[in-house]
């Protein structure tokens, strides 16, 4: 029972980190970034290469993955999304899907479709044993990383100038621009942060589930997107709460109900929550002006 809870928290923390990327981009650019899951996959591959081929340690290779993904996020935003700043949301959605196809197939060409077995980057830390309960080190690192990221992001959006600019842009783009905020740059920074987080999520995800394929990112991507909506899309604490709840529900459903139906149960819970609270757990209700 406790083991399941710990596994759930660990998986949920990974979802939460991915969901943060979704939610921040959605809050500011009002777009569903379906390519986010594939950035996770790229992050995983970069970390894999830097440990296996370059022989870097866990922390340098994670940092390397973060840098690569951040640059990737900025480049993708500049080339694919920026020209569509004023287009309909569906057009941007399809472009994001195009980017997702592109990343998946680029990974397929570079790393082939054979699954790679990811080295456990946090394996060097010993597992914690309390009585009969074994807490895997991956779970501890994941949860701690999640808490640190959450804390850092809250500080960032609450205290710094850029963070305040982000909140302003997400509330009203036009008014923010009138106040002298560089909207384009703010959106780029958001993408950069989201993609950097995706790289961390990629490393943590692959440490827990060590098969790496070009399609590794898509299902966690969809689940994390669900988590973001679950918690109320656009809200940072919401993404955190949604991610963790989703992870716990998934692991418990797997353990007690059915392995094959666990995804269906997760989605069913999402539907029920949205019916009771149509804007997610912590989402704000925006009433439409007539």
């Amino acid at each position, binding site marked *: 029972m406790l083991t399941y809870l710990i596994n759930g928290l660990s998986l949920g923390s990974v979802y939460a980190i991915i969901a943060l990327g979704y939610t921040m981009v*959605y809050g500011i650019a009002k777009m*569903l970034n*379906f390519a986010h899951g594939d950035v996770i996959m790229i992050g995983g591959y970069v970390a894999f290469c830097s440990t296996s081929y370059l022989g870097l340690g866990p922390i340098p290779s994670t940092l390397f993955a973060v840098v690569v993904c951040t640059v990737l996020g900025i480049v993708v935003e500049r080339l*694919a999304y920026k*020209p*569509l700043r004023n*287009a*309909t949301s*569906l*057009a941007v*959605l*399809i*472009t994001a*899907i*195009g*980017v997702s*196809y*592109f990343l998946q*197939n*680029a990974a*397929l*060409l570079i790393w082939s479709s054979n699954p790679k077995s990811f080295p456990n980057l946090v394996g060097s830390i010993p597992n914690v044993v309390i009585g009969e309960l074994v807490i895997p080190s991956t779970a501890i690192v994941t949860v701690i990383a999640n808490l640190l990221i959450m804390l850092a992001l809250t500080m960032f959006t609450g205290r710094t100038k850029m963070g305040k600019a982000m909140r302003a842009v997400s509330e009203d783009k036009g008014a923010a621009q009138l106040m002298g905020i560089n909207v384009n740059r703010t959106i780029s920074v958001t993408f950069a942060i989201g993609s950097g987080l995706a790289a961390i999520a990629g490393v943590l995800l692959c440490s827990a589930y060590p098969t790496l394929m070009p399609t590794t990112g*898509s299902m966690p991507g*969809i689940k994390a*997107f*669900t988590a973001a*909506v679950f918690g109320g*899309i656009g809200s940072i604490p919401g993404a955190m709460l949604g991610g963790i709840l989703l992870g716990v529900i998934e692991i418990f459903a797997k353990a007690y109900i*059915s392995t*094959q*139906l666990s*995804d*269906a149960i997760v*989605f*069913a819970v*999402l*539907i029920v929550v*949205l*019916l009771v609270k*149509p*804007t*997610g757990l912590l989402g704000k209700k925006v009433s*439409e002006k*007539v």
Partner: protein
Amino acid sequence: MKLLSKLTKNGYQNYIIVILFFAVFQILSSTGHISNSLKGQLVPIVVYVIMALSLNLVVGISGELSLGHAGFMSVGAFTGIIVSATLQNSIPNGSIRLVFAIVIGAVFAGVIGFLISVPVLRLNGDYLAIVTLAFGEIIKNLLNITYVGLDSKGLHLSTKDIASMNMKPDGITILNGPMGALGTVKISTFFSGIVLLLLVLIVIQNLVASRCGRAIMALRDNRIAGEACGLSATKYKMIAFVTSAAIAGSAGALYGLNYSTLVPKKFDFNTSILILVFVVLGGIGNMTGSIIAAALLTVLPEMLRTFRDYRMLVYAIVLILVMIVTNNEKARDALTGLLRRFRKKSVKEGTANE
């Protein structure tokens, strides 16, 4: 005849396109001008065209984003397969069996669509989209644990495995959980697909042009104003959603009976997205656009074969470029400028030659 001309007066160009498409391919294939791989693509092309039309009814006409359309397709496909396998002995004629399979597949998908629309239509915008995605995944998951078998006593159903269906020794397994349908008798033909496509066009275009269709579009353009005029948003959106689900089910039945094996995993999120790509590239709300985009994009990976391993990469780049060119004014101006310069140049060369 009079009724037919009345029914087809809206958007008649689409019927002409479809019939021309059929004629061209029929002539090409009878004279042996198409490759076998393209011949195998004919039914899928028709299926995807119907799927695009059906999704366009929800996304374009009703204005709600649906990300789970492949779910309805899979309901239709597997219902169709079960119906066809059950009627195998009583109706030996493949075409008549196909009609039964398509009709029952459409009804089933329509019923599922109705059940889903009740909760879905209480939401709006991106929340509605994510719930349709969730339902699509749930349908896929449920089909993954569905086992259906047939013996002399009738149909057997189980959610565990083949053995727990308790069939007689002569029983055959129709659906085998995650392995899907095995050993389906292929009865779909290009001709039957075209007939279904024409029927679907008649249904959709007449629905859009009717009083009901105008109500649906009014609610899309301004829900509050529409409701103030006494239109029930839920009712009209539901009509669009259920019709669309039933059409997707009919396309699914056609698709399912075109292959001897079919796994539930085929109808995942990526398939839903693929259909959405057809609709958006063809132009949201534009039926002609949907037909052309779905047909072209289904054949495109086939035509990009020369790029070999790079074909899906090229496909992705084409997709992004098309979206940017059609939606960004600067890019569009640059492109038209380039075309103009090119034309001028060729005109100049033409005069120099004279």
